[in-house]
């Protein structure tokens, strides 16, 4: 319940952050502290993946658990290809109708379709990650790795965590990353982000799966986390407004930016997020009454159907942006598109919840048996 609430909130933030120049998006996490919804999503995915596949492993053995994880990966892969098709359709349609010599260089946007064979191939190999399409490829790689490493996760989580930390550190020092097309690296570097995912998995196991508790994952007193979080917030505001303050040494601002690198999950992002997560967990107990209230239900349901809501959210943010372009920006218009979009997402999540509930109920009454899908 609590997981789903925060994941739902993260998904709504992802939707809002992807509509640029929109005042509502200034209210999201990305503008408050050095981390954003991507961290929420990856961390909670780690927790729930460990929960779901850890339990399956416990009950049904490794082969079945790994197979279920791979099935989930396949679903994610199909979703990635689906988003790519939508993106391509949108760009090629718009670029075709676009004639303006002032934007000669910009019209080159369809350039990635100059060689569609290569572009499609690179999208299928996860190397082409156009606008906002970086997080699913990351999740796919992480889940495949999880399927392979499940036994270690169950029996020697600490070994895994040490290895994972070492890889993350290597990324920070040597800048390792996977290659992406056309020219560059993955936007969310899996070799760095795996660390957060595994920390999430470690916490997931600790609370809900027997006999695999990590001795390395220890929490400081909540006061320490809260104080650190306050520092993170202050630091973020300082850097954001550093332009206007001559007292802040340039080298310091430089260093902070360096440490809060998104692609490689810089140490500042990681620590600030963990502090934030700790504070959130302390402030919102698992059985908090308001998590069950009618007002929060829609957010929780968004979190329960995270994959669908993520994909539709990406689609809606593009559509919302298009609406703003055609009909003009403005406080009211931006609010309408933002809150309207959130409303649509909640409605869809509600519908999905209802339809799955009915499906389960009818199966219970002797309807056709359907294979259970692991919700990762």
């Amino acid at each position, binding site marked *: 319940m609590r997981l789903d609430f925060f994941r739902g909130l993260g998904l709504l933030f992802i939707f809002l952050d992807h509509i*640029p*120049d929109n005042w509502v998006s200034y209210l999201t996490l990305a503008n408050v502290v050095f981390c954003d919804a991507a961290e929420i999503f990856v961390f909670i995915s780690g927790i729930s993946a460990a929960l779901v596949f850890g339990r399956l492993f416990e009950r049904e053995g490794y082969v079945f658990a790994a197979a279920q994880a791979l099935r989930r990966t396949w679903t994610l892969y199909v979703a990635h290809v689906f988003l790519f098709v939508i993106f391509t359709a*949108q*760009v090629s349609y*718009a*670029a075709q109708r*676009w*004639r*303006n*010599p*002032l*934007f*000669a*260089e*910009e019209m*080159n*946007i369809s*350039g*990635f379709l100059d060689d569609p064979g290569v572009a499609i191939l690179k999208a299928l190999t996860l190397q082409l990650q*156009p*606008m*906002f399409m970086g997080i699913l490829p990351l999740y796919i790689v992480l889940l495949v790795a999880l399927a392979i490493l499940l036994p270690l996760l169950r029996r020697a989580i600490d070994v895994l965590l040490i290895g994972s930390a070492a890889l993350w550190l290597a990324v920070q020092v040597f800048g390792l990353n996977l290659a*992406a097309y*056309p*020219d*560059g*690296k993955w936007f969310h570097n899996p070799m760095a982000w795996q660390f957060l995912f595994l920390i999430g998995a470690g916490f997931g196991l600790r609370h809900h799966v027997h006999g695999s508790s990590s001795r390395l994952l220890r929490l400081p007193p909540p006061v320490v986390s809260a104080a650190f979080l306050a520092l993170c917030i202050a630091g973020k505001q300082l*850097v954001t407004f*550093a*332009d206007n303050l001559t007292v802040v040494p*340039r080298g310091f*601002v*430089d260093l902070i*930016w360096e440490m809060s*690198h998104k*692609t490689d999950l810089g140490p500042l992002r990681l620590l600030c997020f963990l502090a934030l997560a700790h504070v959130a967990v302390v402030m919102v107990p698992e059985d908090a009454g308001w998590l069950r209230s009618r007002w929060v239900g829609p957010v929780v349901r968004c979190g329960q159907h995270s994959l669908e809501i993520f994909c539709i959210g990406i689609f809606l943010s593009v559509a919302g*942006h*298009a609406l703003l*372009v055609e009909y*003009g*920006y403005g406080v009211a218009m931006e609010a309408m598109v933002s809150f309207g979009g959130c409303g649509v997402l909640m409605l869809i999540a509600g519908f999905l919840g209802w339809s799955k509930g009915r499906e389960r109920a009818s199966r219970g009454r002797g309807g056709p048996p359907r294979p259970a899908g692991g919700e990762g």
Partner: protein
Amino acid sequence: MRLRSLVFATAMLLSVESARGAAEIVLEAEMAKLPAQCRVPVAFVADPSLLRRSARRIERDQIFRIVVLGSASAQGIGASTPAKAWPVRLEEVLKERYPATTLRVIVKAKAYDTAQKMLSRLEEVIAERPHLVLWETGTAEAVRGLNIDDFITTLRDGIDRLAETRTDIVLIEPQYGRRSALLINYQPYLDAMHRAEAMRDLIVFPRFAIMRHWAQSDQIVVDNLPASMMTETADKVYDCLARLLAIQIMHGLRASN
């Protein structure tokens, strides 16, 4: 003793304030002279970063050499004649303001160039011994979605190389159009340029924000134009950009005196 130093500090502060006030009055007067379609909030062209070298050379030797390192728009693509390109217009506007100064704007522009490719042409720019370099960049990266870290590194290398030769720097953001902003994710590249601004002593000319302001206030709309309007609009855009850029440059020069 403490009281005296307090009074002294206050007096210093007040004099700085009044000097700043004077600069702002001049700035506002400049803005008021702009054609209505070009207007933007004063803050867009009021970066107080210094243009030390340029200011010194203008004052001492009455000479001001500007080199534009850029891409298609610096070549004036889409304009009715090459004479309407923004660097040419900039030279005209600045010559009016500094009639006694030998002033040249040299253009080193190539369409579709990434910052990386421009960096390889940087020595060519330095060979012109510019006092001020206007570096227009970010478009090719955003269009092709190139890696943001590579872009930041390239920017930093270029800025550091120019700083070695003590050249003043103005970075120029990509253009804004509603359609292009819908298809192209500019934000990370804009952020990278402003990060460079926060880290080094330079001015970022917010062309993106300026053109967005024009679009939002219906001053100059570049989207959904009939073909017959396109050339005329490009001329208008370049003219206004040159005027605003001139105002920003003059502001930096005044701050340095």
